[in-house]
């Protein structure tokens, strides 16, 4: 453990809806370069945490900082520009735009081109557009969608849309990406592809927080796992520790799964 400041610090995050506390005083840190999984049963508050951290829902209490910069209370688009991007559980894409344009849109607020320049044909704009097109093609290649670069996003399958969303979240060179259920409803071949993509992106230096229901996926992919139950963090550590933590097994995995995990199934 180095003494450097964590990339993401979350302190005392709390969110209440109509009398129910969806997120209850959750705190954690994410080191730069880590791949952290966030698991928990339905209603444990995982998606709410994602929404709060990314500025899509207001938190009632708590603070969070990205690389020392305060993100608390800021609106979604500013948090994205500050370097924290996310994907959505209900996979979102611009159906009528081509895949490449989908990616180019994702980059345009972060490449330093001002409004007036945007309307002209100046060198700055052309350079920025060329750079984002190149990066877009790279990312499409990484996620295996390069051949559809000029196709409208509407033609993609569900799993392909998820890959596109991951690529889009990467376009603006974020410091930290939060993936919200990247493999939910996706077939096993595609799950393996997503896993490969995440490994590759992490190798290029991106920090990832992955929220998922698919415990197997998280356990094999992440070096660190946080477990949430009923809005509270009940465990935080490497998969081996989580697998055998009695509280986790009891509250979340249930006796049958607990037995399975105890026998070392991945």
């Amino acid at each position, binding site marked *: 453990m180095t003494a450097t400041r964590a990339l993401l610090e979350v302190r005392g995050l709390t969110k209440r809806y109509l009398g129910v506390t969806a997120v209850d005083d959750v705190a954690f840190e994410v080191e730069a370069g880590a791949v952290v999984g966030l698991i928990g049963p339905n209603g444990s508050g995982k998606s709410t945490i994602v929404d709060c951290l*990314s*500025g*899509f829902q207001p938190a009632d209490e708590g603070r969070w900082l990205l690389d020392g910069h305060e993100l608390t209370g800021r*609106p*979604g*688009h*500013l948090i*994205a*520009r500050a370097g924290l*991007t*996310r*994907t*959505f559980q209900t996979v*979102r*894409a*611009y*159906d*009528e*735009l081509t895949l490449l*344009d989908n990616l*180019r*849109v*994702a980059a*345009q*607020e*972060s490449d330093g*081109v001002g*409004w007036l320049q*945007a*309307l002209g044909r100046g060198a700055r*704009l052309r350079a920025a*557009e060329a750079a984002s097109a190149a990066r877009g093609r790279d990312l499409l290649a990484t996620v295996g969608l390069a051949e559809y670069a000029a*196709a*409208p996003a*509407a*033609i*993609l*399958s*569900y*799993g*392909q849309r998820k890959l596109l969303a991951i690529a*889009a*979240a990467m*376009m*603006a060179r974020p410091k930290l990406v939060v993936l919200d259920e990247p493999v939910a409803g996706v*077939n096993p*071949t*595609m799950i393996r*592809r997503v896993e490969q993509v995440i490994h590759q992106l992490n190798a290029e230096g991106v920090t990832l927080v992955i929220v998922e229901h698919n415990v197997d996926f998280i356990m094999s992919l992440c070096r660190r796992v946080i477990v949430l139950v009923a809005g509270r963090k009940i465990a935080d550590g490497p998969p081996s520790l989580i697998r055998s933590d009695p509280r986790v097994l009891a509250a979340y995995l249930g006796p049958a799964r607990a037995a399975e995990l105890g026998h070392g199934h991945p």
Partner: protein
Amino acid sequence: MTPGWLRALLVLLGIAALFAVPRLTGNEYVLALGVSFATFSVLSGGLNLVYGYTGLLSFAQVGFFGIGGYTAALLVTEGGWPLWAGAASGGMLAALVGLVIGYSSLRLSRHAFAIVSLSFAFLCMIVARDWVSLTRGAMGIPGLPVPVLDLPGLPWRLSRPADFYYLLMGFAVIAQAVIYVVVTSRLGRAMQAVKLNEALAQSQGIDPLRYKLLALALSALLAGIVGGFFVFYLTIVDPSIFDFYYTETMLIMVIIWGPGSFWGVLGASAVLAALPDLLRFTTDLRMVLYGAVLIAAMLVFPGGVGGWLRRRHLRRWRRPSLAAP
């Protein structure tokens, strides 16, 4: 797709043809159609920017149009201002009003904005009718004087219908050029992103409010200026400048080919500006027809004719190899 230079050439030829019309015919009826086309193209182009590109259903355009008209009329008749300044001021006032109602209601929701824009248009009509000390009430300001456009070195008295044709057509070309530059730029791309998936756009750093306000203010500015010119063509400004008829017509122009299509809306404006007169329908029947078209469009062709064609076009991408791996 035709090559860029060919399209540019065709556009230039088209513009040249439009400007040649008054030389080829002195027929006032034709010139009137031209003025109508020019004016509606600016109105529908602005509505397309707001609704077609940014996805914001707005009924406020006619309000901006009339505000521009009244402002220009008052500044010229009461203040002795030159026409260009009157119209420009009308445009800027309209843009300011647009920003105010936009900023206050867009923070709520699209529903709220649609209803507020509708009531704003209605309110404009009521104010024009009832604030007699300002707007002269239901009689309006008739007998607007022949305007003089003080171009550097060349004062231009707009005394003939052909003069107004040149003025309005000229402004329409400028307005369409401005709109074209915006929608083909990354600003236009951002607006489309806001329309197609606002939450996704936000997660990519795009501020939806900023782009909605930009579209609204720009459309208001253009509508206000063309309103300022248009009332001098009519030589009268009265509350009928806020008539719902304008709103209904612009909506049809935007919807029929498909909201969001630059050339589609421009083409629809041309056809719809000329067609009704050619068909010799009374206004009422024309509105019944438009209403029916609107209903049919919403039921069967929500994306307009162009949208339907685009969907058919999509099929060429649907190949067996696209099944999820």
